[in-house]
């Protein structure tokens, strides 16, 4: 069977089957939006965590590190409970929409961005502290400098976040509902088609998912390679 499934998968990709393209589109849109939101919140938060001493800081660091391993189904369940009709945010009507999926994936990506940013910025702050303090950049005023100078390491952190978002199935399945043409993503479609026995579609989606991940990684790797050469 696998030969024919593989051939069918390739023809689906090359013919740009509209349903197939739609699924890829939803996946990318949801995961990239989640990474973007997590970056905007997580990078400054990680930098603050790296620089500011406060009581309970070590506890926060351990919790954030632990949350990097948060099971997607648990994140999905929590978001489901928040967004369901009777939940505290039920009035938003987000459940079973891409918005709910973005929220769930943001929760999954955020700890990665915060934890990796903290690690990078902590080392950088140690190195830059005297100079930036001398220039009057103390406290949060130093954050833009630190994030900018950590940009290549942060690109890797965002890649890791994108990897987690695009690969997970549990959270988007629970809060998105795998509705065809609306909230169906590559991972939920693979799970569904495999269980239905339609291996061609599952395999085709798997190939696309892998290829996209590879392309995005190559792009970021290449960009930071070139960038590093200019910056040392």
């Amino acid at each position, binding site marked *: 069977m696998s030969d024919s499934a593989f051939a069918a998968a390739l023809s689906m990709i090359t013919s740009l089957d509209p349903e197939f393209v739609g699924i890829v589109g939803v996946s990318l849109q949801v995961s990239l939006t989640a990474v973007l939101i997590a970056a905007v919140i997580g990078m400054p938060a990680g930098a603050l965590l790296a620089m500011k001493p406060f009581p309970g800081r070590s506890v926060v660091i351990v919790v954030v590190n632990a949350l990097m391993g948060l099971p997607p189904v648990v994140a999905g369940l929590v978001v489901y409970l928040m967004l369901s009709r009777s939940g505290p945010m039920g009035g938003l009507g987000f459940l079973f929409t891409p918005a709910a999926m973005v929220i769930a994936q943001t929760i999954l990506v955020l700890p990665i961005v915060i934890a990796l940013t903290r690690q990078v910025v902590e080392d950088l702050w140690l190195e*830059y502290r*005297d100079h*930036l*303090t001398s220039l*009057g950049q103390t406290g949060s005023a130093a954050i833009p400098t630190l994030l900018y*100078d950590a940009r290549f390491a942060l690109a890797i952190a965002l890649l890791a976040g994108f990897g987690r978002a695009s690969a997970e199935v549990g959270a988007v399945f629970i809060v998105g509902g795998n509705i065809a043409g609306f909230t169906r993503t590559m991972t939920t479609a693979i799970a569904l088609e495999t269980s239905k026995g339609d291996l061609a579609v599952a395999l085709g989606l798997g190939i696309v998912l892998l290829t996209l991940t590879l392309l995005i990684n190559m792009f970021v790797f290449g960009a930071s390679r070139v960038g590093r050469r200019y*910056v*040392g």
Partner: protein
Amino acid sequence: MHDMPSILPLAARNLVFEAEGKRLLHGIDFAIARGDRLALVGPNGAGKTLTLRILHGLLRPTTGSVLWGLDEGKRNGRKRHAMVFQKPVMLRRSVRGNIEHALAAAGFPRAERRERARDALARFGLISIAERPARVLSGGEQQRLAITRAAALEPDLLFLDEPSSSLDPGATRQVEAMLEDLHNSGVTLVFSTHDLGQARRLASRAAILNKGRVIEYGPARDVLEAPKSAEAKAFVAGDLLW
């Protein structure tokens, strides 16, 4: 710029610094007048770096005070003293980027930064490496960039911690020429060094520190050629004090 009121004189009054129950500075006193080139000399651990950091405002003394002639070392709200550290801190940017960043942090408007950075690069002969990443420069180039970056801020006073401790003789000469140039343009210099030759070449006044105390202080010639105290005599003669 030097027609404007200066932030100098600067006086250190009985500076005491303690960390983890240990007293590292035991009442440091001296005064720095406009145009001085003060060398803080002494062995490692004498308290030279600590004194510079306190004067520059990076550390708060446990007791004692740092008195500026003008508004905490500021003029029109802008800090008028800068510091070059022993190990130059190089941002992950180009040579020009490093200077423009410092100017931005100090509050210079965007339009002025390019021009000031270019002037500073030209003045100290760094134009040819302006676009190179700062972190791949040689040690001597990095130190010259660190001094150029501080000079671009047009400080009244520049603190330098061991400005040439890890440099070869050629790079040391270049750094010393830059300091002469800065002094000639009216910048007051306060630098630490464990190199007595450098202190003799550059300083107009000198303070010998040992174990957190000033053991000799005055005009460089007197302090470095004919010190009064036995301790200072031993140090200048090259005997180990530690």
